[in-house]
């Protein structure tokens, strides 16, 4: 089959696959594994704390829109916001998933913008634009400018060089050749001065620090080649290397740009995740007025209001209200706990059923969340530095090249008969031939192709070297709740209830966000009519249907006597109709549909599997048995997980940690390489090297496969580059390399390396 056509359909298929995770009007099951799927509107925090005033008096607001991945979202959002009176411009950046809104009317409240986005089913979080590094954007653009200039110059000089080369074998006059050389110099000199800057700057700073990096031989080669070529032009010689010098810059800039581009994508993902932490909180002032306030500026003693579906911004004590609180991201427990007046609640947890007023006891760094982050930062910095393949190659490469060039120069000077001129030309030829053109492209090209291939599987590579480390992993440690399982309860089918009972229960369940209730409604293909209910947080709901009182909720709520703990760690919900016997619904946190398959595939790839969970042993063991995993640790606290990982790495194991909870974050940071599902806690996604989307675990297997394949490809590419050098360097030292041969060798090796990298894309 035609390969290009195949890869085209592949990427098309991938687009649609990715789009399924997106898309507007709050379709149930759109992405957020942990959130009970909200009917249409999603709650958004008030962004007014992040509105900035531009110098020309207009207001602007930057937002990250979480669930925007498909193009249809763009006009949807822009038109909806454009309809708000006063809004001047709303512009979506689809690549980065960000939204920029400007307006002049001071009467327009930022809350209207987020409310509009809510109504259309988008989760939007305002962020401080100054926080996201604009300097980096600038550097991206400078690199692209340099690339364009080098591309233009190398094409034009190459045209002139081809004329010179064909002139050399026919009857071109010396005057014409000199003229062409000088025109080449006219193009090359400014280009090298401009496009060479990234390399010169880096080489200079390395030299000043007493080190040698890859840019030193590059700069030296380019500068010497230019210098020698100018001298050749002056004495109307035959060989000038202007084309080689500029082409070298062009190829290396391509490699640099690919690398930067990939890092940029990574960076924007990381920045989005970081910005998500700084959600706005709603503070109730002593006067009773409510005000939006950046969460990181909360002080102990303040009172905050939290609506169902908003994360609690700081640790505190509840002073008003009652709600089921989903703490799964913090503790790994899949069932919500009840918080009433005087309960302690933690930052990052999620009230589900009622509003809460909370007095802040500790904020920002001092919260439980903050402490976990601290543990995570410490673990990340303690992680031993991983020497990248490219850096290891560079360490040997640069000195070798310099020694060879110097030896050539001295050899020709002492043994040759022509004096310093041929000696210099030969040394320049060595420097040009060895310039790590292919080497500079070998690894970025593979990384770019692999990132693209991973993206098709819904896998986002956050750190550039994640791919290389993924290839080295020999042990996989899984968290249970939310990773091996879906992290949400599912109704166990056919246990003592009738379809009528289920339908009745679903009518009540629709009005609450409690995960068990949501599971109940999910069990039915079509939803029955909802009834207005009365909700008692932590207990259940009740409604009057046809004059009869119907209750749905806990055992206590439905007046069912206790009869021992439920078997197998299952949780339950009772339905009580006035005048008839209570009915029980049992739920279990189901493993992801492909969990067993994934474990088996990983084992066949030669990896050892371990489960490390914060949940009760009675819930973990049956799952481990079902997945046939022997090494199991249950009831592990965040620091126990961390210790376990450190112990493993001391045994010389390279661990891939897959986890989603806040309690996994330190372990994720400490692991050799780590992955998180996109339903994970923000902190965990920040800590993980790789984030994958969707309901399946299969991306874990696919990532390891792609990681291994790309590592193989990188090594092949390095080998190709070295073979090329082994052939070309002796020729150059012998003085047989002319500018024509240099140009052919350079572009030939680069093309081979890039083609080899592209093979990765065809296979996967």
């Amino acid at each position, binding site marked *: 089959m035609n390969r290009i056509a195949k890869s085209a359909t592949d990427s098309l298929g991938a687009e649609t696959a990715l789009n399924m995770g997106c898309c507007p009007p709050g379709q149930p099951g759109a992405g957020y594994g942990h959130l009970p799927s909200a009917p249409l509107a999603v709650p958004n925090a008030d962004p007014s704390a992040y509105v900035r005033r531009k110098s020309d008096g207009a207001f602007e607001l930057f937002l990250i829109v979480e669930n925007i991945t498909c*193009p*249809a979202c*763009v*006009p949807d959002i*822009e*038109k909806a916001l*454009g*309809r708000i009176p006063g809004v001047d411009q709303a512009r*979506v*950046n*689809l*690549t*980065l998933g960000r939204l920029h809104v400007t307006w002049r009317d001071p009467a327009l409240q930022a809350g209207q913008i987020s409310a509009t986005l809510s109504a259309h089913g988008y989760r939007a979080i305002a962020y401080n634009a100054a926080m996201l590094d604009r300097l980096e954007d600038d550097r991206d*653009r400078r690199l*692209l*400018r340099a690339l*364009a*200039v080098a591309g*233009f110059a190398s*094409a*034009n000089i190459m045209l002139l060089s081809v004329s010179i080369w064909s002139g050399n074998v026919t009857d071109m006059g010396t005057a*014409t050749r000199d003229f062409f050389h000088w*025109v080449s110099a006219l*193009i090359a000199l400014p280009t090298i001065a401009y496009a060479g800057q990234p390399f010169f700057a880096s080489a200079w700073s390395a030299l000043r620090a007493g080190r040698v990096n890859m840019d030193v031989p590059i700069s030296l080669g380019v500068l010497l080649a230019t210098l020698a070529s100018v001298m050749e032009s002056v004495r109307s010689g035959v060989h000038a290397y202007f084309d080689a010098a500029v082409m070298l810059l062009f190829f290396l800039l391509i490699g640099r740009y690919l690398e930067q581009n990939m890092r940029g994508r990574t960076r924007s993902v990381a920045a989005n995740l970081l910005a998500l932490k700084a959600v706005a909180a709603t503070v109730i002032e002593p006067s009773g007025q409510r005000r939006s306030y950046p969460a990181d500026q909360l002080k102990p003693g303040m009172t905050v209001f939290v609506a169902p579906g908003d994360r609690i911004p700081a640790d505190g004590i509840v002073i008003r209200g009652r709600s089921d609180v989903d703490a799964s991201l913090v503790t790994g427990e899949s069932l919500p706990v009840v918080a009433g007046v005087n309960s302690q609640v933690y930052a990052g947890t999620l009230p589900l059923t009622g509003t809460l007023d909370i007095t802040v006891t500790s904020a920002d760094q001092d919260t439980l969340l903050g402490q976990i982050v601290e543990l995570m930062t410490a673990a990340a910095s303690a992680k031993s530095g991983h020497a990248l393949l490219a850096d290891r190659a560079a360490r040997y490469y640069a000195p070798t090249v310099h020694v060879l060039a110097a030896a050539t120069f001295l050899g020709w000077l002492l043994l040759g008969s022509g004096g310093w001129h041929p000696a210099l030309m030969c040394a320049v030829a060595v420097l040009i031939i060895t310039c790590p053109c292919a080497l500079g492209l070998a690894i970025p090209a593979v990384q770019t192709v692999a990132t693209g291939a991973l993206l098709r599987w819904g896998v986002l590579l956050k750190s550039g070297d994640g791919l290389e480390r993924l290839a080295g992993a020999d042990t996989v440690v899984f968290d249970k709740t939310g990773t091996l399982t879906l992290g949400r309860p599912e109704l166990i089918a056919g246990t003592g209830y009738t379809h009528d009972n289920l339908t009745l229960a679903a009518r009540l369940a629709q009005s609450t966000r409690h995960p068990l209730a949501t599971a109940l409604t999910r069990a039915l293909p079509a939803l029955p009519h909802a009834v207005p209910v009365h909700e008692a947080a932590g207990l259940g709901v009740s409604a009057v249907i046809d004059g009869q009182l119907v209750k749905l909720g806990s055992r206590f709520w439905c007046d069912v006597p206790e009869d021992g703990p439920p078997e197998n760690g299952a949780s339950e919900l009772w339905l009580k109709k006035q005048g008839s016997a209570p009915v029980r619904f049992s739920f279990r946190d189901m493993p992801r549909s492909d969990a067993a398959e994934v474990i088996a595939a990983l084992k066949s790839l030669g990896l050892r599997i371990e489960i490390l969970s914060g949940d009760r042993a009675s819930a973990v063991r049956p799952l481990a048995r079902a997945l046939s995993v022997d090494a199991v640790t249950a009831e592990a606290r965040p620091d126990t997980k961390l210790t376990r990982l450190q112990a493993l790495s001391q045994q010389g194991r390279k661990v891939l940690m897959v986890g989603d909870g806040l309690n996994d974050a330190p372990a994720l940071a400490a692991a050799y390489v780590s992955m998180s599902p996109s339903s994970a806690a923000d902190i965990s996604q920040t800590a993980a090297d790789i984030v994958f989307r969707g309901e399946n675990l299969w991306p874990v297997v696919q990532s390891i496969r792609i990681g291994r394949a790309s590592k193989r490809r990188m090594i092949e590419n390095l080998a190709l580059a070295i073979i090329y050098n082994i052939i070309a360097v002796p020729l150059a030292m012998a003085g047989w390399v002319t500018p024509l041969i240099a140009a052919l060798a350079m572009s030939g090796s680069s093309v081979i390396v890039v083609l080899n990298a592209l093979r990765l894309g065809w296979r996967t």
Partner: protein
Amino acid sequence: MTVIIYLLPVALFLGLLGLGAFLWCLKDHQYDDLKGAAYRAVMDQDAAED
């Protein structure tokens, strides 16, 4: 062959024109959102009505 005295500057000038156009696009932020721009071209009809 004297014609190349004129032709070379002309060719270079045309090339520089292209380079200039690219750099201008870059400065104009046209490369900031490649993915979005690709789809805007086909979806703008509705937006124009507003």
